[in-house]
Structures are given as structure tokens and as C-alpha cells.
């Protein structure tokens, strides 16, 4: 038995053995990684605000686009187009996404091949390039269903595009509801749907809201599929219905970037700021909802 020496005389056995350079450098490297990402974001924001500063005034949202007079042009039609498309996208994708998530989380037997297939399928859809959804929208919705290049087509296409995000986020939210809540409800003689509709869903609302808002803000920023769906168009009116023609902010921005006159580039920066405000506002709501919800259990 060789116990470690334990004499009173040894001192400072716990002292640091030299400066841990490796640890210090490593920690700073990690910090730098984070800092680069954040610095990039800041640069981007500063740049677009700086570029767009001269056009950040009511002309931006009160005027229609103009090819002749960039100094008078605005993004009114695109702003309203975005609001229309996003609202309609919400109407389509939120109920379907949330109900689908309930099915997968609460009803589906994960051992069944068809449920596994649905799950795998959703994971796949989440990573399919958005331009492929554009092809889908063009071939099936615009031409196949004959909806043309309208707000309706754009919204359906974007709904399908963000549906996986809504489903995945809603599933997370539903899963995060402690099973003790479900048990308590069943223990009181509640049926499955009663348990889900009265306990699980209300408790999952914050999480689902977060996911939904993030999904919609993705839809709000999406341009690629709409390029194939007639988005690149001079539109000088506010849409008045789901079958109306439209343009949206990202497309309008793309259109202006594609102009060669510098004035349009300033204008597109201003429109970018407008779009970012819309999106950051949506993100902040999501974050706010999430942070409040975290205090629950």
C-alpha cells in the first residue's frame, strides 16, 4: 500500500504548472471565429445602410418603381407584394405544417415504414435547393394548375418551400412539452385529442410560433424560386387579390441590382435595409417569444 505522500511540508502542490499557452491561444482562436462572423454581419449592415442612406425616406415605401427616374422610384409595390405573399404563405403553410407535425409527433408509429418515409422525406425537402421548388412551381402550379404567375402561385410555392421548416420546428416544440403534462391529462381520463388540443398545443405555441416566424422570414427573403415564377417584372400597383400579378422585395432588389445606373444601386441598398427591417423584426419577435417561453417549466 503506497499512499501518496502527505506531509505537511509540501506546499503549493496545487499551483499552476506554467502558463497554459495552448489553452489561451485556443480560446482566442474560437473567439476570433465568432468575431469574424459577427464582424461580417456588422460590415454588411453598415455597408447597406451607408449605401442606401440617401434613399431611406418615405419615397422608398410611398412610390412605385420607375425606370426613368430612379430618384423618384420606390418599392411600394414590392413591399405590399411581400406582405401579400407572406400572409398567404402563412395561411397555407402554418396549418398544414402544424397539423403534420402533430401527426408525426403524437400519432405516427415511428416503427412503421411509411411514417419513417414521411420523416425522411421531410428532412430531404428541407435541404432541397429553393430553385428546384421554383421548377416545381413553374411546372405544376403555374402551368399544371393554371394559376399563372400570380400571388397564389408564389405563395403556394413558398409554402411548400418552408413547410419542412415549420414541421421540424413544430415537432421540436411539441416534443419539448414534458411528457408529464400528457400523462397528467391522460390520467384524468382525457382523450388523445383532448390532451393534444388542450394541453400539448397551448404549451407548444411559443416554440411553434418561433419556428413559424423563422420560416416566414425565410420565405420573405427568398428570391430564387420566384425568378422562375414571373417575379422579375415592372409592377406599379398594389396587388388587390390572390390572382393579381406581383413583385416582392427580394426580386425588386435583384431587379435594381441588375440595373447599371448607380442610383438604382443606392435604391436597392435602401430596399435591402427595408427588407432587413422586415426580417429582423420577424426574427426578433421569434427570439422574444422563445426567450419568454423558456421560463415555463
Amino acid at each position, binding site marked *: 500500500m503506497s499512499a501518496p505522500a502527505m506531509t505537511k511540508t509540501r506546499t503549493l502542490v496545487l499551483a499552476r504548472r506554467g502558463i497554459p499557452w495552448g489553452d489561451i491561444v485556443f480560446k482566442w482562436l474560437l473567439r476570433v471565429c465568432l468575431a469574424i462572423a459577427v464582424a461580417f454581419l456588422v460590415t454588411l449592415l453598415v455597408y447597406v445602410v451607408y449605401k442606401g442612406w440617401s434613399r431611406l425616406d418615405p419615397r422608398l415605401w410611398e412610390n412605385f418603381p420607375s425606370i426613368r427616374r430612379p430618384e423618384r422610384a420606390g418599392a411600394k409595390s414590392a413591399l405590399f407584394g411581400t406582405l401579400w405573399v407572406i400572409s398567404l404563405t402563412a395561411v397555407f403553410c402554418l*396549418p398544414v405544417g402544424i397539423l403534420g407535425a402533430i401527426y408525426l409527433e403524437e400519432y405516427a408509429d415511428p416503427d412503421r415504414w411509411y411514417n419513417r418515409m414521411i420523416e425522411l422525406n421531410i*428532412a430531404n425537402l428541407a435541404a*432541397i435547393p429553393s430553385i428546384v421548388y421554383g421548377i416545381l412551381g413553374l411546372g405544376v402550379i403555374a402551368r399544371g394548375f393554371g394559376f399563372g404567375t400570380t400571388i397564389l402561385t408564389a405563395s403556394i410555392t413558398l409554402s411548400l418551400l418552408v413547410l419542412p421548416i415549420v414541421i421540424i420546428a413544430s415537432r421540436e416544440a411539441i416534443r419539448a412539452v414534458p411528457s408529464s403534462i400528457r400523462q397528467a391529462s391522460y390520467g384524468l381520463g382525457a382523450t388523445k385529442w383532448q390532451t393534444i388540443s388542450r394541453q400539448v398545443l397551448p404549451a407548444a405555441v411559443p416554440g411553434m410560433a418561433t419556428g413559424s416566424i423563422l420560416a416566414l422570414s425565410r420565405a420573405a427573403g427568398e*428570391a430564387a424560386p420566384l425568378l422562375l415564377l414571373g417575379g422579375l417584372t415592372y409592377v406599379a400597383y398594389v396587388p388587390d387579390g390572390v390572382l393579381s400579378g406581383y413583385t416582392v422585395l427580394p426580386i425588386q432588389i435583384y431587379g435594381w441590382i441588375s440595373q447599371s445606373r448607380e442610383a438604382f444601386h443606392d435604391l*436597392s441598398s435602401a430596399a435591402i435595409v427595408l427588407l432587413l427591417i422586415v426580417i429582423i423584426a420577424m426574427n426578433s419577435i421569434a427570439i422574444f417569444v422563445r426567450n419568454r417561453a423558456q421560463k415555463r417549466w
Partner: protein
Amino acid sequence: MTAPATPSAPASPQGPLGRARSRYGERTVQVVLVAAALVSVATTVGIVVSLVPPTVEFFASVSFAEFFTTTQWAPLFEPPAYGVLPLVTATLLITVIAVVVAIPLGLGAALYLSEYAHPRTRMTFKPILEVLAGVPTVVYGFFALRFVTPTLQGWLPAGMSPDVFNALSAGLVMGIMIVPTVASLSEDAMSAVPRGLRDGAYALGSSTRLVAVRVVVPAALSGIVASFVLAISRAIGETMIVAIASGNKPELSFNPLDAMQTMTGFIAQAGSGDLPTASLDYKTIFAVGALLFLITFVMNLISARLVRRFREVYE
């Protein structure tokens, strides 16, 4: 405890446990829910249905060999050439640049947030990274073209000065775009590593760096790799950045300073031009779309595998 007055006679059961009321509502609900879940399947079917027939027709006119082995892509020219390789290599090159940027940055940020940062710091920076993920890609494209490229032209020595449209800035900016994908998913995977493992390692006298590198990263590895795969998928599928910033020049080149066209870039360009539906040109879009779909599909399968394995690690 006082015994009940009549200990022997139990309350007789209040009627049978069966219930006449059949629960039609519950069944209806289930049907509705299944229908909602099937929308996603319908979407995939829709994608396949819209891709496959034109692609099949395309390959009736253009041989597989020409499509996959020749190196000139000029489907809309006279005479046309259908070698998809330039689009594929451009996609790969830009993706590689993006990944080279995103993986170290994303992983570093994730490690910092999950292992070093105070919870308050994490609460501040995670949303900031998420904003980065939420920035529309048009904006990134604009930034790449108008800021990053001029900056690079200013910095790099004359011989290495990139073209106005080039793969490098598109790739760099795309890398930043996918940093949040890597960071946030890796961070999730790292936080999912049970506290106990970290405690175990700390209790053996590891520094935070060793805990991070030797315990957390290996334990979260499949989740981390899955985040890479997803980020790569996003990079492959990204359209607006390349449409705006990389030029639309389908040329077989591995020089990131050159302009090039990716698969998505081609679809966006040709698709927004809205070609005659009956033409071979039009089917080209679908053939490239199908190839893109196939590539991301395979990537996703790999990632699903990894995620499943990841889930099994601890139990």
C-alpha cells in the same frame, strides 16, 4: 388512522367500464392530420413529376456520355454543347470555398458558445448568428458583388486580382451565409452531449480545451458532421449569390478568380429567360435541376444516416 365504518362492503363499480359513445371526432382528427403530413409527400412527388419527364426527354436527345463527360456547356448556342461538367465543377469549387470558410468559423463559434461562453453571452450571440442565417441571399449577392469583390481587388496583388464576377467572392460570402447552419446545429449537438461526460473529463484534470477537443467534439461528431452535410447542401443549392456575383460563364476552370456558372446559376438564368416549353433548351433546365436534386438528395440521405447514428451514441 380510523377504519371506515363498514370495512367489508366496497363501493360497487359505477357501471361498466365500457363506453357506448364511440369517438368519431378522434378518427376525423386523425384523418385530417394524416392528410397534412401527406402534403410533404405530395411535394416530393410533385418535384419528381415535374423533373422526370422533361429530363427523360432530354436524355432522349442528348446522350448520358455527352452530358457527363464532355466539358463544354453551351446548350443555348448554335451548335449546342451539353457537357454539364463546367457547371458541376463551378458548383463544387464555390461550395468548397464556402465550406472552407464556414466549417472552421462555424465550428469555432459553436465550440466557443457551447464550452466557453457565459450563458448570457450565448443568449446574445446565438440570435445574432441566426440573423446572419435570416439575411436574404439577394443581400449577400449584392454585398459580394459590390463590396467583397472590390475589396478583394484592392487587397490582392495585381496578378491575383479577381474578375468583376468571380467564384471567390461568391464562395466567401456563401461561406459566411452557411456559418450559422454549421454553428447552430453543431452547437445543438455539443449541448446534447451529456453534462456527465464533461464533468467526468473535468474531474480528471482536463482543461476546457481538452474537454472540448477530446470529449465534446468526438461525442458530438456525427451531429457536427451532419451539420456540415446540411451546410454543404445549402451551398450547393444556393442560387442568388452566384447568380449575382459569380458571373454566368460556364467554363471549365478551377481558378476561383474567374467568372463561372453553377448549376443553380444556370437554372436561374435560363429559367427566368423562360424558354419555349417544347424546346430542348427548356428541358435542359430540368435535366440540370434533376441532377441538382439528385446530388442534394444523396447528401441528405448521408446526413440522415449520420443524425440517426448520432442519436444512438449514448443509450
